[in-house]
């Protein structure tokens, strides 16, 4: 065991730190001009799409360099590297792996520059956890595909220019995972209707998307017809060790501790309540377990060992922590936890936080699905 970095890794860390010292301003002071400057500078350094190959415009960073970059950025709460979130997370990697030369040239630079947003049309009203059961119909007519059906929970559909879409091109298949095709669709194509859905916090970040005889050129198919499932799975499997996420949790926990010091509960500071203390310590311990699980996972990756479904362990921790930290923050406030808005502490920051967990807990595969993955793929139990 050795937690030291190699000299050249240490040099890269120093480079990142020097950049941050020079260019980062505190969270509250980030103006539009600052953000524009920031985007230009990190793009110039090829830190956007840092893990992608250099020949498509990525940074060609090694695994360890990627970890260092994300780690330092997250530690200082730097703005994201690039603004095209889903483009960078899975659309881009999918295009790099399965796309034609034309598709790469057409889409990758815009994803790196953050010219516009991508959204993800996977889930349907009847196909959520069981995504492969999706039914959105798609038939080929000459050089076009014609799409009819509905997607739902499509995050930022209303602000996106393009969508990565899964459709069914064949129902005549033995297993439902076959016969699915992946298309890249421009959102202003005639026949597409986007209807935002209000979530329980009162805002709208996702939408229903309806397809009514929507015509998509065949050249916008990603990968082979009928093999869209593989395209999706391998793009989503761009698993990271998740170490950088830990910084966000550590920060939230540190704010929760501060809250516990300042709130009175049962006639004394909440930080002196043994029940609250144990829950804070338990959250602290789970966050540290995530960090260290991530390091073991990363070690395996660095050694070139096959990494399987271990990342589900941290996904489960993350989901449960996201809920627990919100609950803890409200319970620390005692009866005031039931207030909201301006009447509540910190303008209702914690009330809002305590209602945001579904993004993490439901959005990325539910805890039950993670438990199934662990039980079936790691422990070898029969599929249900």
């Amino acid at each position: 065991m050795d937690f030291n970095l190699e000299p050249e890794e240490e040099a890269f860390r120093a480079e990142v730190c020097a950049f941050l010292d020079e260019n980062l301003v505190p969270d509250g002071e980030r103006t539009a001009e600052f953000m524009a400057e920031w985007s230009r500078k990190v793009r110039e350094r090829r830190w956007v799409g840092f893990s992608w190959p250099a020949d498509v415009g990525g940074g060609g960073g090694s695994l360890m360099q990627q970890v260092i970059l994300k780690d330092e950025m997250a530690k200082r709460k730097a703005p994201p590297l690039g603004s095209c979130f889903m483009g960078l997370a899975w659309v881009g990697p999918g295009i790099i792996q399965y796309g034609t030369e034309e598709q790469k040239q057409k889409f990758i630079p815009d994803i790196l520059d953050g010219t516009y947003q991508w959204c993800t049309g996977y889930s349907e009203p009847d196909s959520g956890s069981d995504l492969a059961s999706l039914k959105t119909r798609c038939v080929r007519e000459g050089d076009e595909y014609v799409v009819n059906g509905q997607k739902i929970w499509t995050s930022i559909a209303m602000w996106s220019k393009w969508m990565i879409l899964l459709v069914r091109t064949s129902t005549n298949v033995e297993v439902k995972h076959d016969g699915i095709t992946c298309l890249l669709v421009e959102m202003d194509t005639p026949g597409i209707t986007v209807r935002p859905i209000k979530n329980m916090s009162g805002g709208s970040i996702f939408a229903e998307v309806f397809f009514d005889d929507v015509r998509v050129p065949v050249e916008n198919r990603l990968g082979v017809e009928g093999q869209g499932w593989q395209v999706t799975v391998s793009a989503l499997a761009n698993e990271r060790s998740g170490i950088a996420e830990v910084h966000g949790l550590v920060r939230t926990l540190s704010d929760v501790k501060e809250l516990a010091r300042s709130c009175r509960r049962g006639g004394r500071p909440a930080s002196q309540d043994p029940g609250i203390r144990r829950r804070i310590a338990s959250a602290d311990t789970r966050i540290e377990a995530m960090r260290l699980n991530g390091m073991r996972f990363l070690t395996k990756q660095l050694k070139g060992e096959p990494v399987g479904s271990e990342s589900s362990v941290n996904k489960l921790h993350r989901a449960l922590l996201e809920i627990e930290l919100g609950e803890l923050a409200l319970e620390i406030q005692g009866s005031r936890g039931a207030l909201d808005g301006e009447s509540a502490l910190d303008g209702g920051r914690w009330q809002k936080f305590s209602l945001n967990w579904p993004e993490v807990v439901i959005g990325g595969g539910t805890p039950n699905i993670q438990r199934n993955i662990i039980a079936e793929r790691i422990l070898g139990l029969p599929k249900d």
Partner: protein
Amino acid sequence: MNFGFSEEQELLRAEVRKFLDQNCPLEEVRKLSETPQGFSRSYWDRFAELGWVGLGVPEVHGGIGLGWVDLVVVLEETGRTLFPSPLIATSLASAAIQAAGSEAQQARWLPGIADGSLIGTLAHLEDSDVLGCAGVELLARRDADAFLLTGGKHMVLDAANADLFVVPFKSGAGEEDISLAVIERATAGLDVEPAGSIDVTQRQGRLRLDGVRVETDAILGEPGGAAPLFERLLDCGAVAITAEAIGASEAALELTASYAKQRVQFDQPIGRFQGVKHPLAEMYVDIESFKSLLYYAAWALDNLPEEASLAASRAKAYASEAFPRIGIDTVGLHGGIGYTWEYDAHLYLKRAKWCRPTFGDADYHYERVARLGGI
């Protein structure tokens, strides 16, 4: 960056595993648990010959000179087969002597520890049941240069088998005024009374001291200056117990998962029901997690002492909470067979119940995590 084991460590693991699988499977563990001493001298001697008892002892005193990470590798394996031996107790006594013993003291005791002839233990707890310096009430009387000790210690690991007792006592009024004495078994006024254990593979007991005379040459380090070392030994204890808990819970999970694949009810393997498979997945999540915490704690004991207490407490807190639940699910997911004496499930459950309070339960360690984390 490498948060994994070296090739030498993997080799060590393979050797220990092979030895235990060949010599001491669970049937043998059960037989040993019925003997009064609870362990086998001949396996212990083989362990010593192979270098595993003196793993941490410096080479000049007949050991191998390795660290806690290496010992964790051995303990994961002894935990996996619930191998009964005074290895943890002896390693703690050995660690105390290595850390604070004079050259003469090291030469007097360490070679015997390394060759298996001296079994050691740490008498860390009193009837107050408070861990740490605050729990030490045994107050010495001065007799010229020597100290006279009258009092008791309980929950002393392998008390009846031990030849050497490392005994913390107070040499002054201040809470931090702690000294550590090494007391040999034959010392006048020392008496040991074995106690029954919830885990039949474990031996422990009460130590009675009635005017035991401790000369200065039996004090480790400066009199009154052992508080930091005593706290560190408790961290070492928590790490060692948790290392065995990893092996034992992995074995319990393996046993239960394989049963869930075979046992058929309602025309299907019970492992297809989520009421069965999800608790198994949770076991895996918990084991992997306290394993990561524990590896880091062991590394910190060797390399980053200022972080070791927090790291050890996180690992032991998580394990103390998770392992009993793993034990209960191991029995419960087996149905009736899990409740039988014949079947091995209960052995893991009892180990879990034994582990939970030993060197601090979840309440104790989470409170410490809170305090060390600034609240």
